[in-house]
């Protein structure tokens, strides 16, 4: 068959979200690919120049909608760097609980979307069933199911509700057994292994040079993690180590990326359980919102010419906010907000990864990089 360009268009079951992957195909083998992004570009950086610091948190929730908390916390850490704000110890622990629960929910959404990519609908419904548990917990913290607007500059909006710790421990223990169910239907299914092993090779050095970070590089055998390399929050007081996978000689394949994320789900669950035990002031006490134990004082205006930036370990890679303060002329609004989306850099690399494989491998490889188009198009 002559080579032909297939446009896997904006509306396509393989694309989790709206983007087009133009694939040049020779028979069944992929010869060349070209991603085309920008279908839900909504100019968040331009809008943020007309909003103050608390209003921008809601926009950052809606950047990557599968992991809203990690993005709003990334923004708040950058804003605290700009406004030179101290955060009380208890607020750091509550933030860690919120971020790690959101990381589990985000990885569950990824596994739920990855199973139909490789052909099995049961995996999706099971993972979404567990994600509902995590969303219930986050709904107690933030108030709504998906976009929580939970962190504030200097702390958190609300303390843990009464009884939250007990419910959280029960659900996480149940979740730790449910992961065995996923591994039963995925790891022990020969067809899943045949579809994902040896597919979508990517070496560590090549990835980091291409700007790909997070679970995708840890799957390639090096335990680089922003949480220990550029330390923030209270990860040093918890007993955890980055989830690393032992790849093959030719680099990490889809199966490694799947293993890394399942391992990270387990670790996040254990971190939340440990965080609840070590919470200063105990996880049963409840402070009123605005109490200095959970919300420090924070100025509303940035000094002239002051800038602030912060790297954050998002569930898909290393996300980052760079803010240029506007001084008196801009009032409460920042002068420029720049958002580093890990997937905006990973998708072109994943598209290059597909060359040489079959058409049926495109969803397997693309899905294993966990694309989230909301943050890509900003």
């Amino acid at each position: 068959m002559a080579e032909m360009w297939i446009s896997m268009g904006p509306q396509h079951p393989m694309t989790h979200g709206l983007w087009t992957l133009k694939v040049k195909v020779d028979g069944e083998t992929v010869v060349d690919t070209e991603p085309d992004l920008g279908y839900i570009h909504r100019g968040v950086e331009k809008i943020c120049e007309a909003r103050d610091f608390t209003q921008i948190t809601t926009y950052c929730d809606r950047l990557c909608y599968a992991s809203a908390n990690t993005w709003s916390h990334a923004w708040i850490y950058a804003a605290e760097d700009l406004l030179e704000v101290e955060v009380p110890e208890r607020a750091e622990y509550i933030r860690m609980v919120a971020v790690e629960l959101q990381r589990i929910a985000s990885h569950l959404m990824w596994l739920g979307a990855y199973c139909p990519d490789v052909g099995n609908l049961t995996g999706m419904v099971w993972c979404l069933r567990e994600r509902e548990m995590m969303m219930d917990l986050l709904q107690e913290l933030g108030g709504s199911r998906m976009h929580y607007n939970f962190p504030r500059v200097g702390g958190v909006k609300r303390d843990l509700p009464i009884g939250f710790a007990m419910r959280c421990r029960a659900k996480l223990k149940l979740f730790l057994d449910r992961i065995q169910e996923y591994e039963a239907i995925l790891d022990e299914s020969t067809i899943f292994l045949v579809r994902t092993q040896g597919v979508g090779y990517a070496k560590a050095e090549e990835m980091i040079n291409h700007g790909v970070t997070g679970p995708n590089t840890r799957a390639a055998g090096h335990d680089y993690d922003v949480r220990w390399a550029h330390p923030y929050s209270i990860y040093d007081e918890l007993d955890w180590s980055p989830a690393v996978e032992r790849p093959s000689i030719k680099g990490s394949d889809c199966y490694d990326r799947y293993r890394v994320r399942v391992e990270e789900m387990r670790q996040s669950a254990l971190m939340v359980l440990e965080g609840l035990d070590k919470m200063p002031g105990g996880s049963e006490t409840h402070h009123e919102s605005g109490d200095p134990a959970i919300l420090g004082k924070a100025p509303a205006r940035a000094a002239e010419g002051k800038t602030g930036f912060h790297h954050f370990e998002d569930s898909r890679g290393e996300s980052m906010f760079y803010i240029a303060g506007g001084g008196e002329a801009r009032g409460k609004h920042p002068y420029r907000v720049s958002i580093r989306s890990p997937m905006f850099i990973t998708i072109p690399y994943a598209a290059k990864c597909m060359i040489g494989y079959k058409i049926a491998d495109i969803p397997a490889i693309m899905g294993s990089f966990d694309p989230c188009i909301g943050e890509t198009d900003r």
Partner: protein
Amino acid sequence: MAKELSADQIQSAAEALVGSVAEKFTGSATAEVRHHTGGRRKNAYVYIDVEAAAWRDLATWLAKSHKVDHCSMITGIHWPEKADATWQVVAHLMRTGVRNPGVVSGRVHEIKVDIDALVGVDVPLEFEISMTLAETREPSVPSVADIWVGADWNEKETWDLVGIEFEGHVGMRRVLLPHDSPTGYHPLQKQHKLRYHDFNEMYDDAQGFGRKPEDVGRVK
């Protein structure tokens, strides 16, 4: 207690690097060690102010001899009121130290980094490199897409939204805005205002798609 990079490891690595930048790029680049000012830990990072012309060989020097292997983000900012520094490009780089795992007796073993033993060039470090350009119609900065491929799509996005050219960039095209948007239209420049930024033009027909009939003339 999980191990993590201690503050003085980062501090010493940053000072070492700032020292070598000072004696290598005396004229064109000034480097200093700055600290994050928020949160629990005030980690150090390297801030380099470089002229646009010297950006490319600073980048190759950092990549070759200081193992800066990851370009995190390139941002373009438009300061219309500053005549001498109208266009600013801020590049954030990182030294991650990610290496391919070695093969031992036919089996690949992953790398578990011994954090306390990291010293000197192996310590992961953050960089913020800023370049400013005076008032011009076509601001342009040399491209580093061939040194770090990660910078490729960052530069495309920066040109697409802010309008700063990158000489030597292969295949510059619009990635986020519609392909048929007018040439020279870069929305993040300050002369473009948000829609309805002042209240009274709430319902005139800014986007040219025809308003719903019953909304014409209504003041919000």
